[in-house]
């Protein structure tokens, strides 16, 4: 039986590569018994029939494609697979930021931050049937590696809390209060957002109480923060949803990274673990749209002031998120981004400026 669809295109065409990893794992044999000629028939992608300082005969047959791929990637400078993501970007990302923003209600804005990965990006895909143990997250129908909008939201929220804490240390109460307001406006007034704030050990509880007082919430001596927050939530019942909408990011290449974990006691290396990653130097763009829908009845000056504050705060959050990194394994330094271009427009067509 021949697995005819792999062809010679492994290195440059994602669709073949994915199939190769996902579908063709169904081999009955445990060890490779075939001769080299037979293997070439079985795996026509194997155009260089000698990957073998390593002895391919030791591989299990079902692992052979992966071993072949790893070998090639290692040999040729972590060669990467390039993905045509043009069509896909047309579907899922905003094409003309300025014209798009003009349709929105006054004091809406849209941000497009282009960046370059300074280190590999990895986020685990739930896809169960995949030859590589740690496949990178991809869109379901297009198999394009991606960062979900919800991941951007998560990482920007973490950055926001970092920034609030830094102001805390500066002992600048006003700034902390304003930033907390921006935090709730941008990300929403859900209890999960609040929990992220109070779970952080460094956040000054008194400042949170001060914030609630200034928002018109009466506080009794014995009230705990959760109860106070509930009152705040009830007051803001129209505004549970945040004003910012985070678009997904899509990438155009994939590669493999190896992590060599060491046994803590013996210091000996264990088996290397392979991760399918978006390699460093890959470019992407983060798009965020901000719509102050919950305050549509408020005077324009109020909305304007809030939107301007929120924009500034959001810009700081983006900067910090790029530094901290996105995705998994940020502790290893993965997922760091370098800002390469920043665009921003208000709904009246004005540029938001890059201060």
């Amino acid at each position, binding site marked *: 039986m021949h697995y*005819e*669809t792999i062809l010679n295109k492994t290195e440059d065409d994602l*669709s*073949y590569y*994915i*199939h190769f990893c996902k*579908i063709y794992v169904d081999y009955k044999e445990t060890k490779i018994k075939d001769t080299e000629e037979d293997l070439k028939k079985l795996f026509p992608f194997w155009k260089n029939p000698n990957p073998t300082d390593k002895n391919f005969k030791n591989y299990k047959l079902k692992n052979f494609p992966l071993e072949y791929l790893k070998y090639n990637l290692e040999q040729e400078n972590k060669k990467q697979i390039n993905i045509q993501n043009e*069509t*896909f970007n*047309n*579907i*899922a990302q905003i094409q003309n930021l300025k014209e*798009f923003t003009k*349709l*929105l*209600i*006054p004091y809406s804005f849209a941000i497009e931050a282009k960046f370059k990965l300074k280190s590999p990006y990895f986020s685990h895909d*739930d896809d169960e049937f995949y030859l590589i143990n740690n496949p990178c997250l991809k*869109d*379901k*129908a*297009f*198999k394009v590696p991606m960062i*979900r*909008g*919800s991941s951007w*939201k998560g990482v920007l929220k973490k950055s926001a809390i970092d920034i609030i804490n830094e102001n805390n240390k500066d002992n600048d109460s006003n700034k902390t209060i304003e930033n907390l307001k921006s935090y709730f406006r941008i990300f*929403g007034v*859900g*209890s*999960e957002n609040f*929990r992220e704030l109070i*779970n952080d050990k460094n956040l000054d509880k008194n400042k949170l109480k001060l914030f609630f007082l200034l928002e018109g919430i009466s506080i009794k001596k014995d009230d705990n923060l*959760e109860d106070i927050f509930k009152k705040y939530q009830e007051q803001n019942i129209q505004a549970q*949803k*945040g004003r910012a*909408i*985070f678009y*997904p990011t899509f990438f155009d290449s994939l590669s493999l990274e190896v992590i060599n974990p060491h046994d803590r006691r013996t210091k000996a290396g264990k088996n290397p673990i392979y991760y399918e990653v978006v390699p460093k130097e890959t470019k992407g763009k983060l798009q965020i*749209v901000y*719509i102050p*829908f919950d305050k*549509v*009845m408020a005077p*324009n000056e109020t909305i304007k002031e809030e939107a301007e504050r929120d924009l500034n705060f959001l810009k700081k959050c983006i900067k910090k998120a790029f530094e901290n990194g996105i995705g998994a394994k940020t502790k290893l330094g993965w997922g760091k981004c370098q800002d390469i271009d920043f665009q921003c427009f208000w709904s009246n067509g004005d540029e938001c400026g890059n201060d």
Partner: protein
Amino acid sequence: MGEALTKKIDIFAISTDPIYIGTGGYTIGRVDNTIVRDPITNIPKIPGSSLAGTWRYYMALKLISEIKDKKPDFNSTEYESHGNLKEKFERYKWKNEPEEDGKKWEYWKYNKIARITCAGQDESPNIEINETPSSKTGHCGHCIVCKAFGFSKKDISSQGMLFFSDLHILFFPVYTRFGTKWITSKRILIENGLLENGESKENNEEKAIVLENPSENNKYINLGWLNLPYEVRSINIQTDKLKNLYELSGKDIVIVPDQLLSHIINSNLEVRTSVSIDPITGAAKEGALFTSEAIPRGTIFSGNIRIFKRLNDDTLPEIKLVCEALEDSKHFFETLGIGGMTTRGFGRLKMSSLNYKENENPASGGENGES
């Protein structure tokens, strides 16, 4: 009911995010979030009621953001003192806005008392229609949003001028070894008028049809886990109808047998596993892993809107105005989305231009009728 005008507008849409519109059903312990499906075909859909409710909010949002500074003060003592309500709508002028009825849908004269609560559930259904200007909550019962989508007050109710069909899947994206293909069936193409006349309606064989051969060496195409034999046939599918939405070309399309369509769609939905969080402690609940299914990004939908207007009723906006209001507010589906979990990256939908032509021959698109 007297004589009436009706108009039908086709709509097409593409999901730019996975779309989750839940049935609301769940079982205790393990919550599995399922999506709304057509009871006959078992194919997921976007219910017309979701579309209507969401669009109502977006139209109100657009309207209020435009007119809020220009509304006359209906609660002034001058207003309370004389004239009936209809006269007041005439007499009270927009602030800083030339009074030209019909010029822009936002400045239709009965919008003068519109408010954001004209969207959503009516919080004050028990007041009379003439009292709504002095009330601050609930549907106003006069503005274009209330007239188009309907309202119900103590003394009068109206089911509105707009009727939304469900949005059905027209083309569904599946990853194959030849890249992403959009599957559909002959039944769906015929129902949407996309199949050229003369093509046989029958497709009972267990075979897929492709319009261009993706590979000389293959006779099979895999649609998820299903491996189907295919044949190449030159069929003209009128994808130009989708032109202002997404350029789908013949080589992207795979026609599958009707009896397999539901199976293929349902086994290629986006499935996401999440953890239930205890709202008090913030900890993950034990055994609270649950899965949600959603219609994937890149799915193309079709449906229609019927607009209905009683003749000689000048308390109703013209059909043209309602169309413009729909057109100007539909872009919010691209940002604020539809359905559940929109804060978690679900629900964005891009809608085609509504293609409304005022003087269109009623036979081609609109139709005259009585009701």
